[in-house]
């Protein structure tokens, strides 16, 4: 037991729970990862839709998407979470019955969590996609159309691959925020990492040790993510690197003159 100022730090407990985490912490970590991935993927897909709507030629669609983006980005996630969970249930719109997916039981709070985080993320990803698509040179679209691509074909094979290069760095940041943001879900009783830790805390009262352990785990997850992100970005940039054996103008055709 170490004493720092007024608090005492139980080093044995800390090391034991850090290196030999109980089932509950493992479960929490897995939940955190699963929730973050699902919500991020949903956010990317929906966000792409938001971006397409914001760039639509139909003013009505543009307006609706703008409104969506404005509302979800302008309010705190915590408030959104409580509105989606308690508000929607209280209004009788949807009462979050448990859903059985094979062996998995998806609790009401978890459903509300996934819905909130996905819809929130869609607003941010929508802005990111919109910006990325808008930076693409008009000439790219002209060239795609000129070889007979329909708008959807051009989007899939010309615009999106180029937009992804712009999207990946902020997407990585979004995912980092997402992982950290899942800690809010403990408020409505989702047993992700922070929820699990709080649960253990209420039995052991080792608050400082446990929260430090949670912080270390979050740090580990975001660090792994940033390494993956760097790798992906390097891959996406590979065609920007000049060739090792470069490029003398090919003169063979000049001989004709």
């Amino acid at each position: 037991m170490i004493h720092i100022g007024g608090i005492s730090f139980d080093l044995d407990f800390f090391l034991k729970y850090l290196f030999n985490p109980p089932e509950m912490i493992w479960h929490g970590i897995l939940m955190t990862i699963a929730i973050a991935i699902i919500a991020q993927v949903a956010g990317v897909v929906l966000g792409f839709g938001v971006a397409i709507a914001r760039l639509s030629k139909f003013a009505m669609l543009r307006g609706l998407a703008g409104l969506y983006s404005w509302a979800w980005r302008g309010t705190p996630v915590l408030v959104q979470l409580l509105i989606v969970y308690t508000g929607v249930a209280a209004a009788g719109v949807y009462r979050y019955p448990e859903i059985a997916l094979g062996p998995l039981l998806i609790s009401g709070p978890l459903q509300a969590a996934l819905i909130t985080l996905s819809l929130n993320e869609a607003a941010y990803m929508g802005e990111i996609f919109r910006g990325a698509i808008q930076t693409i040179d008009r000439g790219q679209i002209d060239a795609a159309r000129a070889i007979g691509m329909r708008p959807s074909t051009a989007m899939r094979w010309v615009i999106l691959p180029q937009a992804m290069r712009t999207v990946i760095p902020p997407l990585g940041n979004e995912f980092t925020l997402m992982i950290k943001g899942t800690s809010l879900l403990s408020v409505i009783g989702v047993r992700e990492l922070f929820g699990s830790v709080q649960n253990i805390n209420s039995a052991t009262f080792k608050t400082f040790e446990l929260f430090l352990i949670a912080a270390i785990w979050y740090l580990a997850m975001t660090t792994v993510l940033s390494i993956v992100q760097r790798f992906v970005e390097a891959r996406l940039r590979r065609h920007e690197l000049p060739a090792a054996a470069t490029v003398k103008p090919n003169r063979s055709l000049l001989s004709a003159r």
Partner: protein
Amino acid sequence: MVLELGMSDTSMERTGGNPAGLQPIVRVADVHKSFGQVQILKGVSLDVARGEVVVLVGRSGSGKTTLVRCINRLELIDKGRIYVDGELIGYKEKAGKLIPESEAAVARHRRHIGMVFQRFNLFPHLTALENVMVGPVRVLHRPKSEVQQEAQALLAKVGLGEKVHNYPSQLSGGQQQRVAIARALAMKPSVMLFDEPTSALDPETVDEVLDVMRNLAKGGMTMIVVTHEMRFARDVSDRIVMMEAGAIVEAGTPEAFFGNSRSERSKAFLSALQ
């Protein structure tokens, strides 16, 4: 080196003027086009026969780019008609009325109209080979292996057999433009549109692109070429068409355009180029 591109079954005589009696590949009839309040094309008519090479000249802002972009409907026209290969571009005709086609329907027409841009507009995320393949594979849904062989042959023919796996950023301007030509040819177009294909190039790479175009013309490709390269115009074209303020003001053989009996207009234009 010998280039054989495009179709060689056209033995049409290379005469200037409108070859009467032949079904034109491109027919531009009384085309009007405005951007906002400003009228850019003021009733342009132009027929281009199969295998013909038409060079479009004119001062900056005279509407050359706009006309070329109207032909494959990258720009919508306000009035008039454009036919390519006998098909009305961009509109359906129903009971004498013109109804604009959807982007998807227009896309079908564009498959047969090759276009080469001033700024190349290669797809930067694809290699040279992939740039050439993407049309046949993703638009025509042809098998990749077959397309790859054709694309490799096309790139070899424009002198880039060694560069197939380079990305555009690893190619010089002239090389990029030749890839762009190969990309358009991969769709087996019945006409090729060129909008100042060499004016964004370093002077030393201009000729490699012009040589490819020369050989395309020799192979019988129908071409509409906006260019300031007067040597190319004189040597390669069948007809020189001059635009001024959104209208065609002169059209004739290169001999007439460059010869002793040339008009005051072409004199003025040519001396302004010097």
